[in-house]
């Protein structure tokens, strides 16, 4: 089980689906950002799994995974800054109460 590519890919698909559900269903903006982190983690797991099982992708997978991690860090920084900036204006972190762009 741990020696086959399929089990890692299915695990990553399940993790991605959990992240999708969280992104679509939660009301809190920070919960949605956390769900995006889960989805990025699932994609990264896919990349690393292919790298571990396919010799030609081995070193490239590590490089791609590191770039994706750095990109996720940048995304989290900007996303949370946007949430905090909106919170300062609207005093709520709930996305369904963001009904206008300016005040």
């Amino acid at each position, binding site marked *: 089980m741990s020696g086959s590519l399929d089990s890692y890919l299915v695990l990553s698909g*399940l993790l991605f689906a959990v992240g999708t559900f969280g992104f679509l*269903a939660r009301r809190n903006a920070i919960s949605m950002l956390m769900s995006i982190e889960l989805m990025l983690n699932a994609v990264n797991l896919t990349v690393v799994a292919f790298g571990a099982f396919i010799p030609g992708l081995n070193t490239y997978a590590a490089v791609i995974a590191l770039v994706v*991690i750095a990109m996720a860090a*940048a995304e989290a920084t900007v996303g949370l800054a946007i949430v905090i900036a909106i919170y300062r204006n609207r005093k709520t*972190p709930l996305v369904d109460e963001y009904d206008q762009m300016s005040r």
Partner: protein
Amino acid sequence: MPIGDSIPFTAVRWDDVLFVVLAAALLISALLVVTLRDIIRSGLALTASFAALAGIYVMLGNPLVAATQVLVYIGAIAVLILFAIMLTQTKNAPSKLVFQTQVVAAAVAAIVIAAIIAVTVLATTWPAATARIWTSTEEAARTMFRSDVLPFEMVSVLLTAAVIGAVYLARRESGRSEEDR
């Protein structure tokens, strides 16, 4: 005394046990992230899911990515998210309704995505796939810093832009800061 490949007196391999434990920890903590009512707890569950995923990277023979996962995700992103939670939670925020009204549609969409990915993966044979191979950190470093250095440089530009953008977005506007409080 060295331990063998499998649990004594059974045919169950230690690798498989470890994989099942880590995968279960990953999926359960991910489900807690999206379902818990208290958002601080869901932030802590997110940290647990990052840790379980780092274990799975080790099982895949990629210690460099596992270490980066611990450093960047658990060390930086989890702390950043917990700080943002503390900055944005109000006492009177209604915590009764965790989900949007489209929660059933979202659940259906997630289940359909999971089913499509699982069916596709299981129906495909990967002709190039071999047994698991260890990723050499030295080779990865040589690829990243010598032969294919462009992504590394682009990431440094991206991180600079992200830091400047985050400071610009989150700063308090001068002149209006007094009546905002």
